[in-house]
């Protein structure tokens, strides 16, 4: 009795969940970077980034 179906199912479900996690996190990272780039392209900057930019411009 090898119960091959149960073993295969356990590993396939594990692989599916882990690949799903990786795909979701990578997609989320890309979405956040895109939103950040869009905002910065519109000239919206964090106060610290705006301060840094002003400091460089003054020097």
């Amino acid at each position, binding site marked *: 009795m090898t*119960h*091959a179906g*149960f073993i295969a199912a*356990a590993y396939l*479900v*594990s692989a599916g*969940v882990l690949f799903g996690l990786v795909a979701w996190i990578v997609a*989320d990272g890309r979405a*956040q970077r895109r939103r950040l780039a869009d905002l910065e392209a519109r000239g919206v*900057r964090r106060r610290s980034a705006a301060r840094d930019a002003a400091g460089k411009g003054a020097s």
Partner: protein
Amino acid sequence: MVLIDLANPTRFLDLSRRVLPWLWAAAVLTLALGLYLAFFLAPPDYQQGQTVRIMFVHVPSAWLSMAGYGLMAVASLGTLVWRHPLADVAAKSAAPLGAAFTFLTLVTGSLWGKPMWGTWWVWDARLTSELVLLLMYLGLIALWQAMDDPGRAGRLAAVLTLVGTVNLPIIKFSVDWWNTLHQPASVFRAGGPKIDDSMLVPLFVMAVAFTLLYAALLMMAMANEILRRRVRTLEMTAAEAGA
């Protein structure tokens, strides 16, 4: 670099960019080694036969489901006591990972239980307390999603997380305190592991691989959460400027 330096989200992003390629390489190599050991070197069990190979994904998932919650509890202390800027980011990012590993524990345990016990599920203390852990993870995720202010959501979630730690010793000792269909502890127990080295070594290699994978995913998820909060701040700045 001392730990307090990582309190700065920008420094954490820089560090994660440098560390992640190495962490991923270590995770993939260890996972490949672990799978080789689990399938080609570990012998079949004298009673369970080949079905024992489910242990090599079930047990590391179970350890991580609990260790992940422990990490969230430490991060919650960081939020409430030290107000560490990354503590809430770590706790929020760890919750979906913990939920995924708890789900895997329950599903692979069920797939192991059916051929060995003759049933997919019983309401014994170990299985039920692990299901409660999944429900706690899902509740915390829902709480973070339900509130707009990440600071307020983080403090509420931290309190709830710390209350939920009462479930961790219940999961661990449920097999000793009550009569369960689930077997007693066979690795972390007084008197040492009851498993032969031929199975114990592959199990530990798989546990290290899953832990490295968890660490890599957590670091990526934390970087995403830092970016999400920056986007939120910028959107509010833009809205205020437009008002």
